């Protein structure tokens, strides 16, 4: 048995692994998050090898969440359980479903619900030289509402996005840095660009991805009121906060310019970003 502990958003959680394989699996998935000393009085997740071939049980407080091999599906369930435990009673900030990168010295927030295209857009931006931060979640502390804390993890691609992301990394695929099966693809961000992630960032641009098969890539400015409504749809833990974090989402929307990026593919993304940076009077390469 080995315990792996992480902290995020001021809360911590332990994952108890029954063997070396599950510990290495967990380490790969959580390697970019701060590691804490063992915590007490918190839910404990366990990954326990079963007697059935290579299947593992993911349990929380002795309740089984799923039984699966050490692959993409178990990873997804593990992330869900970890984030639920870290955020379910978290009142110290607002968590948003969002990707995030630093591109050309500008922090970009990429909010969207599941399936909106956050991971694909994040992967593309990282491939273009952005500093990868997260493809899933950003936490904004109440005492520092302008600062985003990314939940940095390997990029997790659903089956529909696998082909696109594999094309970006081409022959750099390595078993050590990648999990690929019928349920999707998980890759360490260093396969896209070898720049270390940062512990926090200050977003200066919000890009709402909207993946639409076959659509041309288009970026349209949206108002702060529209952005606020869209941010609230990405709110993860708002019910723990006064007004469900509505005021905080509104302040983010007022402070940061917002755009919707609709796309079927991202081949023209560099040109589109160049035009957007020019429009915003930001330095271009």
């Amino acid at each position: 048995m080995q315990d792996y502990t992480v902290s995020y958003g001021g809360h911590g959680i332990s994952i108890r692994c029954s063997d070396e394989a599950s510990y290495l699996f967990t380490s790969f998935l959580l390697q970019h998050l701060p590691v804490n000393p063992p915590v007490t009085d918190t839910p404990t997740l366990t990954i326990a090898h079963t007697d059935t071939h290579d299947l593992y049980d993911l349990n929380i407080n002795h309740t089984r969440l799923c039984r699966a091999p050490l692959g993409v599906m178990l990873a997804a369930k593990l992330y869900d359980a970890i984030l639920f435990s870290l955020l379910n009673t978290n009142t110290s900030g607002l968590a948003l479903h969002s990707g995030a990168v630093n591109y050309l010295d500008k922090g970009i927030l990429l909010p969207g619900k599941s399936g909106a295209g956050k991971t694909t857009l994040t992967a593309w931006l990282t491939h273009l030289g952005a500093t990868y931060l997260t493809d899933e979640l950003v936490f904004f502390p109440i005492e520092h509402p302008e600062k985003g804390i990314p939940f940095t993890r390997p990029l997790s691609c659903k089956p529909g996005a696998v082909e696109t992301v594999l094309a970006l990394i081409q022959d750099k695929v390595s078993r050590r840095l990648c999990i690929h099966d019928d349920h999707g693809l998980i890759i360490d961000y260093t396969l896209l660009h070898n720049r270390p992630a940062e512990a926090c960032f200050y977003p200066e641009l919000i890009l709402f991805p909207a993946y639409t098969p076959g659509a041309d890539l288009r970026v349209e400015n949206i108002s702060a009121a529209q952005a606020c409504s869209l941010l609230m749809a990405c709110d993860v833990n708002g019910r723990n906060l006064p007004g469900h974090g509505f005021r905080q989402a509104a302040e983010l929307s007022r402070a940061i310019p917002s755009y919707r990026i609709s796309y079927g593919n991202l081949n023209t993304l560099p040109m589109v970003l160049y035009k957007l940076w020019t429009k915003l009077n930001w330095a271009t390469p």
Partner: protein
Amino acid sequence: MHDLTSIVFLTPGFLLEKFDNEFTVYHPTLTTSFYLNASSALIWQLCDGTNSVQDIITKLQQLYPESRKQIPAETCALLDQLIDKDIACLRPPS
């Protein structure tokens, strides 16, 4: 098609943020957010529990006579969206 004499009521408990002449509405219990552009924001403000659907249409047509033909359909379309999201309801006049 709505009964134009119905009075429009908004669901209590919503939160409102104003951005210039646009609004964002959020209802904590329903966990529903809704964006209102400038014209929708005007309609929203008229949904105060005293105006009927026809009252709202008439007042908007007085404000924007150049758009009087489009206003009934646009008003009913917005009310449909608000009702669909349980943000508003219609009640017969008392």
